């Protein structure tokens, strides 16, 4: 028999969205029992790596309407405008709550919270704590969560399956990494907040834990993954490692230069107009790729490829140390470059998934009692391209909303029998037991992961050719077959990281499958999805969300309307 624990709300993921949801649940109904299940200790969650800031209207020269319009335009009109409206209204309140909880926001001389400029935003509305905003937000949330006695943490527990019965999700099966045992963690509602899946691609800012787990869990239960073709390439990652150099470098006045030392965003037409370096990420990443393609990239000896320069020298040491000290630490440690004296080598790097588990504005999914928030969800805030600094705020706004709605939901739910859930958990325990150290057909995790990375880089990079996307679909299907032949070497139960890697790989392949299919179906260029075969946006045929459903014989594609209402689509030019 599997171990069983019972709670009211089960939250999967301990990053910004999961922790915010946990606090929201506890505040909505003190005394409620919350399970916070995470495959890492919460302070390791990838929120920690976010650098530049979190957006919310704060200044007197700014308005909610301006933030909403910037977000709509940034999304290339694929964001749902009701969601965006709610987001901009809640954003200042959420960041203020975080201030009350102790987040060390950087300050103006008068003691008010300081804001900085960010790409695609018309005015300074990005709150920041130097350039370690995700780190400070995560630690503030985690430390604050400790005062809520209702939250019971299941650290280093890897969720392998959602327990769904009678159309309602009422728990998860979680592999306790310490013991190697599968447990049933039951609840009346489940909130997924597991982040994105950047590790599907080889060159990414994302940490090792970003394997699309929540997306795959929901996908396998029959919930659509929405807008998966839209993955964001951040313009400035360090070549080789992919380590993120924040957009705040440009918000603070940094320049992008080509091999001729030319500020190409001001001298050539890349659609960003006078915004130059403060254009949206999709456009700037394409501009860099085009500079490289035109022979104006800087060449690195060896395997890393060509890059551009991010020049901060004119900002001076004092400003760099006051505003973006982490950038200096990262550049020195990982690129051997001191930005005070030399430009930083950078190139576009996979950063964020706009798509995710299809949810409504409450974070609710098609399955009763199952919610999703943060990068793992697609509430349709970001559409085809996310604006920098909207995602940290998104975790708070929609983490809180999903938490509050989960509490409302369980008040009206009568629950159900445990038997079917426990049988599913038993089956899952059997599957995990069989996988551990399985003999298989000789396929290896490392090889399969490299194949997947390679397929996805060729098929779903900054630019996507129809032929390469079609090929990616076929190859991912083959890869699924190869996964069945996986051979594992580690039969031990205690902290077996090999079986975790195997389970993560399965999740990533599922995510990859949905990305490849959605990308193939969108025969236009919109936001982050740039197809040389169809170089313009086609609102007549493609002003819709993409949905990909799991199927045992292969994924199924569908679509869904975009909610407009305030702004009609227009040409996206800055």
């Amino acid at each position, binding site marked *: 028999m599997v171990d069983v624990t019972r709670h009211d709300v089960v939250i999967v993921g301990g990053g910004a969205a999961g922790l915010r949801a946990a606090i929201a649940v506890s505040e909505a109904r003190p005394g409620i029992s919350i399970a916070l299940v995470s495959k890492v200790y919460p302070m390791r969650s990838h929120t920690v790596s976010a650098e530049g800031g979190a957006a919310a209207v704060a200044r007197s020269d700014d308005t909610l309407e301006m933030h909403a319009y910037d977000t709509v335009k940034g999304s290339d009109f694929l964001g749902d405008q009701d969601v965006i409206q709610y987001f901009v209204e809640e954003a200042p309140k959420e960041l203020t709550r975080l201030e009350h909880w102790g987040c060390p926001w950087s300050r103006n001389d008068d003691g008010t919270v300081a804001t900085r400029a960010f790409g695609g935003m018309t005015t300074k509305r990005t709150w920041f704590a130097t350039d370690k905003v995700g780190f400070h937000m995560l630690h503030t949330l985690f430390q604050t969560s400790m005062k809520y006695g209702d939250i019971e943490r299941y650290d280093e527990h890897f969720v392998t399956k959602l327990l769904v019965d009678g159309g309602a999700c009422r728990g998860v099966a979680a592999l*306790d990494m*310490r*013991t190697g045992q599968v447990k049933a963690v039951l609840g009346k509602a489940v909130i997924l907040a597991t982040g994105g899946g950047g590790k599907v691609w080889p060159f990414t800012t994302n940490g090792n834990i970003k394997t699309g787990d929540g997306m795959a869990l929901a996908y396998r239960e029959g919930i659509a993954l929405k807008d998966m073709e839209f993955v964001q390439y951040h313009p400035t990652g360090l070549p080789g490692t992919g380590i993120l150099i924040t957009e705040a470098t440009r918000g603070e006045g940094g320049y992008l230069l080509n091999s001729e030392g030319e500020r190409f965003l001001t001298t050539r037409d890349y659609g960003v107009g006078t915004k130059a370096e403060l254009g949206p990420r999709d456009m700037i990443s394409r501009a860099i790729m085009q500079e490289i393609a035109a022979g104006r990239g800087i060449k690195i000896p060896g395997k890393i490829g060509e890059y551009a320069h991010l020049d901060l020298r004119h900002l001076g040491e004092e400003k760099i140390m006051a505003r973006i000290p982490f950038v200096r630490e990262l550049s020195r440690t990982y690129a051997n470059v001191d930005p005070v004296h030399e430009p930083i080598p950078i190139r576009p790097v996979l950063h964020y998934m706009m798509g995710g588990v299809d949810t409504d504005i409450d974070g609710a999914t098609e399955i009763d009692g199952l919610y999703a928030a943060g990068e793992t969800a697609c509430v349709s805030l970001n559409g085809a391209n996310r604006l920098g600094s909207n995602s940290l705020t998104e975790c708070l706004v929609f983490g809180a909303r999903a938490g509050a709605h989960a509490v409302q939901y369980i008040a009206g739910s009568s629950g159900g029998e445990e038997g079917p859930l426990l049988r599913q958990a038993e089956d899952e325990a059997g599957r995990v037991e069989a996988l551990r150290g399985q003999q298989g057909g000789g396929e290896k995790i490392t090889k399969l992961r490299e194949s997947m990375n390679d397929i996805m880089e060729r098929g779903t990079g900054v630019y996507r050719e129809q032929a390469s996307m079609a090929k990616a679909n076929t190859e991912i299907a083959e890869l699924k077959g190869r996964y069945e032949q996986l051979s594992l070497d580690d039969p031990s139960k*205690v902290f077996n990281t090999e079986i975790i890697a195997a389970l993560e790989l399965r999740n990533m392949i599922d995510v990859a499958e949905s990305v490849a299919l959605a990308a193939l179906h969108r025969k236009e260029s919109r936001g982050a999805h740039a197809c040389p075969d169809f170089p313009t946006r086609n609102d007549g045929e493609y002003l819709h969300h993409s949905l990909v459903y799991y199927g045992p014989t292969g994924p199924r594609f569908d679509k869904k309307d975009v909610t407009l209402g305030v702004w009609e689509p227009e040409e996206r030019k800055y």
Partner: protein
Amino acid sequence: MTHAVPRVDAMKPSKPGPTRTAPPRPPDKFPGGGRYPAYLAFGACGAFLMISASLLTRGIWALGNGEAAWDAYRAGLGHPAYLVYHVAAFLGLTWFVLRLFRLFPATQPYRIGPLKRPPDAVLVAGLYGLFFTVLAVGTLFLGGAML
């Protein structure tokens, strides 16, 4: 006193974990490697303070017990063993002060009272200034020049 034998309960969770663990090792370089000898010597300098304080107490006691007791105490201070101790204590405490002054600036907060903390160089200069002033005044006083 610290020792290099592992404490099996270092960083032990309040509830025992679900699987058997290997006991913690003490820091790998403790006590003889890295910076640990300096730290241990720094702590051991406390002995000088203790001995000197007891000798001083003994002197005050002698002062209150008549001229003979005071003379005997003074004679004791001329004993070779005491002279050796005195030199050792002087060297030890000087080294103690040097280490303390090296570490001290980093213990200072961003603001000291209403003032921003001065640069480390100023703090260190201030500490040495104070130290040598006290030393000079003490030497002059004990040498009789200030009586």
